[in-house]
């Protein structure tokens, strides 16, 4: 796990969430810039998942391994799944889906952080 990457993902994710909320209240559908934003976010997430997997293969494993793997799979799939689902909707509810996903993502990262290095 790369600490600064977790921070960056959380910041970018919240940024995209706020941006999509603004689009939602301006009654705009999801457009290509939103999609690019989600793409950047997804790449960052994939980087973090890759780093985590590399560390685990290297032998440094947390106690609750199955739980951690399922969380990692979730964050890897959440951005593209929600981006597609939101982009299919041609109304202001498309950005609403993305905003929701981008608020959930930082929470998931916090849980992953707790699983990775539990506070004893």
């Amino acid at each position: 796990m790369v600490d600064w990457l977790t921070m960056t993902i959380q910041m970018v994710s919240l940024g995209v969430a706020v941006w999509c909320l603004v689009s939602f209240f301006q009654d705009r559908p999801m457009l290509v810039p939103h999609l690019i934003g989600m793409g950047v976010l997804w790449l960052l997430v994939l980087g973090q998942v890759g780093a985590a997997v590399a560390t685990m293969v290297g032998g440094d494993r947390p106690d609750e391994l199955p739980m951690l793997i399922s969380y990692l799979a979730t964050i890897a799939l959440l951005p593209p799944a929600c981006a597609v689902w939101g982009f299919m909707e041609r109304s202001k509810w498309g950005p609403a889906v993305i905003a929701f996903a981008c608020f959930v993502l930082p929470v998931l990262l916090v849980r992953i952080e707790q699983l990775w290095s539990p506070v004893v």
Partner: protein
Amino acid sequence: MSETAATTTGTTLRSGPGRLLVAVYAVFALAATARGTYQLLTRFDEAPLAYGLSVLAGALYFVAAVGLARAGRTSRMVALVCVSVETAGVLAVGALTVFWSAGFPDDTVWSNFGSGYLFIPLALPVLGLWWILKVHSEDRRETPPAS
């Protein structure tokens, strides 16, 4: 697939606010099922009732999400039933955990009316009910019953 028969209702139930509802339901389905299954498998003895309820809640969320997304007449009824059971579930379990906490040594998604999940489990079925009934009444107004 009954897609062609349900084109008008099909697009309304999963579009607009329904689009967001399906996304939220899907995420909660995953969260509750994964959490409950894992806890059942690893710590069954500690709180079987709580973990079983988590899995049940997850299954309900999943069926509701699919029902909303498929959006035909039948799946609308399925979603309606699921969402109703959920409302009852979150109210009952919420009240039980507040007044009879001894029965629940560990938390479920529905504990304390879903306070661990920002009360979304409490708001979700209410919004779901509102949306399904709204689409249902609009649908009845637009297309008078055939035969």
